[in-house]
């Protein structure tokens, strides 16, 4: 346990440093983009958030498979915690998408491929999290959630494919053009790295809290 604690402190430290550096890079260091102005800086948050939304769901997927296979609670704890962190990131991604869209393109929402896919992903996260209290008991809730995690994750690429094909049929006026200068690329990569660490940290913390909750409940049961 001691070793675990040290590891967590190291992770906390590294993440803090990485995030501070990232914020500096995003808001101060990287030059302002020509076309969109200051608000474009959201891009450096927006993209890593998308990456994390997906990564977190992948972890949910793996955790769900392992849980159904091995029936060990630790896998469900992993999947559940990742889903909670993931849904938060997805929500932030959607919000930053809205914040970005309005000043730049004049609309609150664009049904572009990324945002739409993220919205569907968000709904799947929601289904994953909501099903638990609706089940007859905790174990069944966990099993149902695992089923949703697996089916949902496999669906994601199909959703993305369908949406991007749809988008080519109905292109909208708002398109984000590529072309990244080296400074922008560097900032983006650092941001990606920092956010991945943040995900990891939050995941560990959430799992630890969940373990404590379970322990507390168990002690209460014993006392009664």
């Amino acid at each position: 346990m001691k070793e675990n604690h040290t590891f967590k402190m190291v992770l906390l430290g590294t993440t803090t440093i990485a995030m501070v550096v990232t914020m500096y890079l995003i808001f101060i260091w990287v030059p302002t983009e020509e076309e969109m102005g200051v608000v474009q800086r959201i891009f450096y948050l927006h993209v890593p958030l998308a990456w994390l939304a997906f990564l977190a769901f992948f972890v949910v997927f793996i955790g769900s498979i392992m849980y159904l296979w091995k029936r060990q609670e630790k896998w469900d704890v992993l999947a559940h915690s990742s889903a909670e962190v993931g849904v938060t990131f997805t929500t932030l991604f959607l919000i930053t998408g809205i914040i970005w869209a309005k000043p730049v393109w004049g609309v609150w929402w664009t049904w572009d491929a990324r945002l739409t896919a993220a919205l569907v992903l968000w709904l799947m996260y929601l289904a994953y999290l909501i099903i638990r209290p609706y089940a007859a008991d905790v174990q069944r809730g966990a099993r149902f959630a695992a089923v949703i995690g697996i089916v949902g994750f496999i669906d994601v690429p199909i959703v993305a494919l369908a949406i991007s094909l749809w988008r080519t049929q109905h292109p909208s006026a708002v398109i984000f053009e590529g072309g990244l200068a080296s400074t922008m690329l560097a900032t983006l990569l650092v941001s990606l790295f920092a956010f991945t660490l943040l995900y990891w940290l939050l995941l560990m913390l959430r799992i630890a809290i969940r373990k404590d909750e379970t322990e507390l409940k168990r002690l209460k049961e014993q006392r009664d």
Partner: protein
Amino acid sequence: MNESIPLSSALEVWELTKTFGNNRALRGINLQVAYGDFLIIFGPNGAGKTTLLKILATIMKPSSGEVRIGGLDLKKDTEEIRQRIGVVSHQTFLYNNLTARENLEFYSRMYDVAEAGQRIHEVVNTVGMATRLNDRVGTLSRGMQQRFSIARALLHNPDIMFLDEPETGLDQEALPMLWQSLQNEGQGKRTIVMATHNLERGLELGNRLVILSGGKIVHEQTGADSDLSTLRKVYEETTKQ
């Protein structure tokens, strides 16, 4: 644990536990039932009777422990076990919109019953319901539905039967006749495990009794060992919460 056990046991349960989250429904059940026994499981509500029977009926998985039914392992040979057991519960397992005959035909196919028409005839006669075969189950009285449910459970001639409080809603006089015919219908004697909280009935029918309380077996005896009032006293004592 495996090879040295004589094959004469219909049911063997070792250290069976079942936990739902923080609720320990079964806390280490040990049981042995020989072929031909009629075991009665008494217990108040919440004692774990239904949980135990569901596990034995292969519907629910145990949290730990081992179960062998007819010599077969519950985990490994689940489908073979299902072919050999019959289950009757307070729910009929019958589709209300279909006729009794259609229900029985359906289950005959599920159990791969050979010569289904003839077999259906046999079991329906055993439970005394031949005249209502073509009626929709939903239109029958509760008692009649339950009789057809028993017919359903007998279709595939199981050696072992699990009954979970089956007498709810049945006409009381017909019951002993029913249980006896259940045990003796077809070739040989069936092994029956029945859960009930009716002490009088259980004492009448069973040759072995256990009392389940709080997820544990708190009392075991053979039927001959006591009369109703003694049993009632023992029951009250052992199931005090």
